[in-house]
């Protein structure tokens, strides 16, 4: 990672106890230690200097507990840390300065029992009814009842008014989709408001990680969100490697990038078809899903898994490419490019599709900025962020990544970003193959003798994907905190839906395509 410009760190210069400084485990990210009392003030300074909140979490493996918040402005990344030494039960809320902090803090309260001072919305978020208000799973595992009742008394924000109806869907939706609950307030066919309720697929990922070794952690990271297996595994592997100051061989990093781009292409193909299908254009769904199937079959043949699960190892990758494999990939890229051109022509210039997609589900640039939206959701609403270009790690630091950007913020723009990114990825993969370094595909990963922590950042297909890993002296995980891009992008759905008709909700939702599993953890 290239050294960050000091602008964000300079914003908190008069508040820091230590730093800003580069520290082991953080790559190029600068660390700033502040007192818990200055936590919110420091965040306010970040916000005033154009910083967005990228992640907010607590490391309960550290003694005392440590609060961490990652801020970014372009390629400038700063990690704010506060030791909760004197009072480990409270911390000032960042929600007055960052809208995204609200639900993250509600979730942290549920899991850790931390009180966030100044947090207005004190409803539970991750907690349903498997454990009580006074129980906090990351402090001590609760013993849930044999039959956990349905969460029927969640206090959705009330809405009043003549001819306002409320419609609730979920947690089980009508299709092959992950579970979550949506409460619509409608007037006639128009949506007045939408409120999300997530947490149904909370599997206790953070608690599951504690005590695992590096291999076990990567297996878990692969399954944080199955569609982002490579992104989460790479972020976790990067954190592990930085914590242990291990540098994977150049060939391994190039292969990881190849896998990450393959994951991006597969998901964008699937989404492009699904978006078209949600407005009844099944022709595109069939075409794109056929392309995706061919792509996945190559994954299975060359990398051993259709969705590239478990292809990464601490210190490298578990797969390699021979000349034949490379030739097959180059042929795949050529064929996909040839298929994409006529399909893109049809999809981007078809009156019935235009009618349904253009102007539907508009996320304004201001909303996207306020929420800290990233990935294709941000880039379709003018947020020009992409780690691969802004703060590139190897091998992206030697590749010039073109980042598609649109200002319209509608479903059509989110579709265009995906279609463009498929072509960009094909080009990147050709270049990766052309300069694939020789040598081993993995190096031995040794746990750091006195323990340590690392931060991993990867631009997955959905956007910036983050992992924080802390280890004890024997190489066992004491804290794993993944941050799926969906955490930042789910709230966008609530902002963009009002004013649209309820029947357009599925296509709006698909255009965001948040991961429920990646959010709920």
């Amino acid at each position, binding site marked *: 990672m290239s050294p960050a410009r000091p602008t964000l760190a300079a914003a908190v210069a008069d508040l820091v106890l230590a730093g800003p400084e580069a520290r082991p485990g953080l790559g190029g990210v600068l660390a700033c230690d502040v007192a818990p009392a200055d936590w919110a003030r420091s965040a306010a300074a970040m916000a005033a200097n154009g910083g967005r909140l990228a992640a907010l979490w607590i490391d309960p493996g550290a003694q005392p507990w440590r609060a961490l918040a990652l801020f970014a402005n372009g390629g400038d990344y700063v990690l704010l840390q506060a030791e909760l030494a004197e009072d480990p039960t409270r911390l000032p809320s960042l929600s007055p300065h960052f809208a995204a902090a609200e639900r993250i803090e509600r979730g942290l309260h549920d899991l850790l029992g931390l009180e966030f001072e100044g947090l207005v919305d004190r409803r539970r978020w991750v907690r349903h009814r498997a454990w009580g208000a006074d129980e906090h799973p990351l402090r001590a595992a609760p013993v849930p009842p044999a039959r956990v009742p349905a969460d029927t008394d969640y206090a959705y924000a009330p809405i009043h008014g003549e001819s306002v109806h409320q419609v609730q869907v979920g947690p089980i939706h009508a*299709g092959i989709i992950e579970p979550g609950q949506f409460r619509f307030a409608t007037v006639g066919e128009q949506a007045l408001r939408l409120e999300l309720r997530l947490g149904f*697929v909370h*599997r206790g990922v953070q608690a599951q990680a504690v005590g695992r070794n590096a291999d076990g952690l990567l297996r878990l990271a692969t399954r944080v969100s199955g569609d982002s297996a490579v992104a989460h595994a790479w972020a976790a592997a990067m954190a592990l490697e930085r914590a242990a100051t291990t540098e994977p061989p150049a060939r391994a990093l190039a292969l990881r990038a190849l896998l990450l781009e393959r994951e991006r292409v597969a998901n964008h193909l699937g989404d492009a078809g699904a978006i078209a299908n949600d407005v009844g254009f099944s022709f595109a769904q069939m075409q794109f899903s056929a392309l995706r199937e061919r792509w996945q079959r190559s994954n299975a043949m060359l990398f051993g898994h259709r969705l590239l699960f478990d292809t990464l190892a601490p210190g490298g990758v578990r797969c390699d490419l021979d000349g034949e494999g490379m030739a097959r990939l180059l042929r795949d890229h050529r064929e996909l490019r040839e298929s994409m051109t006529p399909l893109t022509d049809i999809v981007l210039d078809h009156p019935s599709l235009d009618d349904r997609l253009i102007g539907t589900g508009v996320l304004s640039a201001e909303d996207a900025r306020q929420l800290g939206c990233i990935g294709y959701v941000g880039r379709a609403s003018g947020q020009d962020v992409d780690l691969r270009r802004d703060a590139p790690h190897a091998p992206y630091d030697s590749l010039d990544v073109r980042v598609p950007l649109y200002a319209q913020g509608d479903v059509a723009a989110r579709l265009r970003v995906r279609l463009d990114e498929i072509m960009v990825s094909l080009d990147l993969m050709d270049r990766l193959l052309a300069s694939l370094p020789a040598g081993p595909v993995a190096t031995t990963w040794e746990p750091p003798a006195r323990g340590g922590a690392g931060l991993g950042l990867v631009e997955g297909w959905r956007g910036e994907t983050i992992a924080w890993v802390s280890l004890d002296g024997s190489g066992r995980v004491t804290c794993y905190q993944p941050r799926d891009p969906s955490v930042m992008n789910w709230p966008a759905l609530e902002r963009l839906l009002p004013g649209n008709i309820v029947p357009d909700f599925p296509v709006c939702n698909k255009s965001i395509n948040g991961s429920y599993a990646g959010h709920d953890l």
Partner: protein
Amino acid sequence: MLRILNRVARTGTLTEALDDTPLQSLGIAVRRRLDARFAGSLAIRHVDAGSCNGCELELHALGNPYHDLEQYGIRFVASPRHADALLVTGVVSRHMQAALLDAWQAMPAPKLVIAAGSCACDGGEFGCSYATVGAVDALLPVDVAIAGCPPTPVALLKGLLAALGREGRLTGRDRPR
């Protein structure tokens, strides 16, 4: 319109041909059993009870032109009331326990329960914890377990075939564990 027709004509039929590919022999077998037992159609209600969404991607792949699940008369339905089989993916999270039971109870008997994927079969990476009940088996009577993380579309098709071969179990149990 012409562009679309041209594309359709150029694409041709991708659905794997009627020869010795494993998919086809499997498909034919599924078809025969469906004809015999379910008057030619099987309706499946899918519930993600705590999946990482990998299984869902492969369930979607069953519908692509290569596999074309509907050619066998198998289709996914929106309501459990219309379903012959409940296909569960994921480790059962505690927060989905009630919804999963509701879906199962809403299905008319006889009903099949299919656990798809390692998590649904044996708890996978997650097992039983404060957040998860564990395998589907811990909650519902499972007729067929389809292993794999996630199971491939061909494995899923094989699992469906196995489900249809479960004679004595077709009456289904009407009580959860």
